[in-house]
């Protein structure tokens, strides 16, 4: 019994891969590995049938794994040689490491790759940009989704500045009929992703600040990051009581049941709210300070598709990838999944009103990606995972904003030369 965990660890991966061998054996069937288990219907009912209209002889199956287990399982399957033909790629290092290990094939010569901008491709390229190993699919944008009826009832307008935003939240709190902001810190990642990375770019000036962190000229102890944590710390006044134990689905439900006025969102939440909320909702970008001349949004390159270097169906898989570079896929994907915005250069009409609101911010504001994703999460401690913990602690009041900032900097200084 004492060696159960060991057996679990190693044999578990083995058993999982053994179970998949028969699936791979059926030649000519493309298997897509993905963490988007929410999207299985869309792939099966819309995307794959559309592909089969052009290539009726290629059978494609979409085999998702729950998001939190995806990286572990796909890495184990690739190492064991039992992974599917097409691998959904996380941005930056997780996929880069797979490419370096020789598990992902280079895709530079894929027809249609020139339909993507360099920025779109940057998340799935080697550091020097010499090789691209995944086909960019979509980005997600952060902002705030609000309950229009609640805003009307309480009598607040959509805020344009940070001051207006907190005045509105104060007013909603005073009114008392709605929870001002629906979020919890139980799962930790919301605090970092919907909190820190959502409001932060306005403090660190988007890409400029992100690049400064990478080259070492910016530090987490700079005012920009401390101030982001300070703003985040004020959120606890607006969150539902007991937010420390409120999970991500709890927060989604609080908002979609109409009990909260504002929801710090990722654009991917739109389709859930479309299905579940019976009130009208809108969205606004993270408000910048009054008088700021530029606004910044987190427009994060989130999802791409790569080719398993050891795929036995590489030719068919390439056909599928080539089809994905076309405008038909871009149109289909952006509209079937409102909130995932195609990264291709094709002009795509987004029909969902809230999704098109999100994507319209690209015109008014400067886009940036989450600052912990490129290079900075390569070492131990892992910056992204640190930010989850620190952001949650700042909201929980177990760390002050200054302590959180210096902890993030200290973690980075441990392994990243430009910060030493």
């Amino acid at each position: 019994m004492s060696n159960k965990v060991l057996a679990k660890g190693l044999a578990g991966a083995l058993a999982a891969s053994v179970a998949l061998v028969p699936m791979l054996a059926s030649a000519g069937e493309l298997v897509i590995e993905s963490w988007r288990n929410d999207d299985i219907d869309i792939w099966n009912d819309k995307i794959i049938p559309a592909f089969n209209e052009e290539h009726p002889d290629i059978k494609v199956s979409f085999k998702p794994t729950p998001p939190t287990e995806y990286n572990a399982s796909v890495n184990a399957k690739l190492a064991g040689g039992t992974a599917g033909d097409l691998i959904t790629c996380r941005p930056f290092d997780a996929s880069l490491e797979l490419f370096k290990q020789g598990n992902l094939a280079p895709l530079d010569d894929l027809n249609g790759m020139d339909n993507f901008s360099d920025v779109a491709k940057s998340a799935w390229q080697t550091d020097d940009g010499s090789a691209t190993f995944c086909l960019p699919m979509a980005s997600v944008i952060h902002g705030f989704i609000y309950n229009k009826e609640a805003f009307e009832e309480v009598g607040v307008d959509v805020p344009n500045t940070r001051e207006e935003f907190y005045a509105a939240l104060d007013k909603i709190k005073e009114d008392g009929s709605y929870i001002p902001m629906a979020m919890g810190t139980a799962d930790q990642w919301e605090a970092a992703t919907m909190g820190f990375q959502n409001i932060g770019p306005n403090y660190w000036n988007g890409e400029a600040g992100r690049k400064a962190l990478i080259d070492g000229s910016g530090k987490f102890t700079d005012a920009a990051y401390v101030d982001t944590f300070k703003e985040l710390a004020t959120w606890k006044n607006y969150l539902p009581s007991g937010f420390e134990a409120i999970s991500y689905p709890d927060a989604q439900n609080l908002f979609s049941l109409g009990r909260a006025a504002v929801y710090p969102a990722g654009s991917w939440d739109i389709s859930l709210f479309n299905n579940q909320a019976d009130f009208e909702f809108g969205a606004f970008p993270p408000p910048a300070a009054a008088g700021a001349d530029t606004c910044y949004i987190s427009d994060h390159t989130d999802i791409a598709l790569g080719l398993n270097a050891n795929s036995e169906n590489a030719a068919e898989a390439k056909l599928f990838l080539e089809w994905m570079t076309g405008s038909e896929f871009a149109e289909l994907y952006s509209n079937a999944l409102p909130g995932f915005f195609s990264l291709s250069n094709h002009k795509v009409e987004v029909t969902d009103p809230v999704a098109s609101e999100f994507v319209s911010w690209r015109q008014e504001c400067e886009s940036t990606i989450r600052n912990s994703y490129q290079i900075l999460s390569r070492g131990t401690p892992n910056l992204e995972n640190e930010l989850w913990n620190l952001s949650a602690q700042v909201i929980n009041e177990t760390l002050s904003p200054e302590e959180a900032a210096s902890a993030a900097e200290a973690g980075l200084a441990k392994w990243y030369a430009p910060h030493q």
Partner: protein
Amino acid sequence: MAHSGPMTDWRKAKLPVIAFLAPATIIYTLFMIYPLLDSIRLSFYATPSGGEAAFVGLDNYRTILADPDWASVFWNSFWNNMKFFAVHMLVQNPIGIALAGILSLPQLRFRNTYRTMMIMPTMLSVVIVGFIWQLILSPVWGVGADLLDIVGLKSLFGPWLGKEASALITLSFISVWQWVGIPLMLIYAALLAIPDDLVDAAVVDGATHFEVFIHIKLPLVLPTVAMVSILTFVGNFNAFDLIYAVKGALAGPNFSTDIMGTLFYRTFFGYQLQLGNPHLGATVASLMFLIILGGVLFYLFAIQRRLARYQM
């Protein structure tokens, strides 16, 4: 049957002995011993990015135990695991013994109903247990606050699963609730094996139920209690599923619920942007194995030998 000497006996017995030993030996070797040894072997290697695995001796152990980052995480998970174990020893096992004592009272009615109800949580999937308790304790939808309100203690309610100070204790209690059926069953079975005349004699001498339990039954089931304790120890240091189901592999808030199982998972498989490191993961697993081995050896040599056993 005629005996024609020990040699023939052994030759005759050889085939059945091998046949009976084979299934367990093969299965254990293939699925337990080999993975265990291979995982220990794995812990002596390291793979540089993009390179081949190379032998590094005890470097991985040095990293986990001496590198300040890893050591703090490792010992944090170790002490959390000790707390997790302590709650089980101090709460689960005494409750299990007490319930078994009550269940074995001769004049108790609905005995089987109680027994079934108490073992029920043990049969539920951990994911369901985690989910149910998360809902019960949820500050938004949970009945926990309302139930406390009925007895006028609502002010005591808090987001226990989300607070650093209370999350691990809360999870330990959930685990106790789920697993209390196991010590209950084992000790109940041992209690049933006690001959009635011992109890009858004590009753004739004027002992109360409580005295009979403390002075007669408990000493007789002490070996079972010791076995339950060691099973609890092994089970708790291998625990992973409940914490993972409720708090995820990052075992928040601020790693206050991180036990060795979740640390192993995070290290071996990686989590979110943290890439998995099979070698360091195997090192954590080997250290877990050593800790459990140490605990079991301590039990075997220091406790089991000193237990008085009575022929009944």
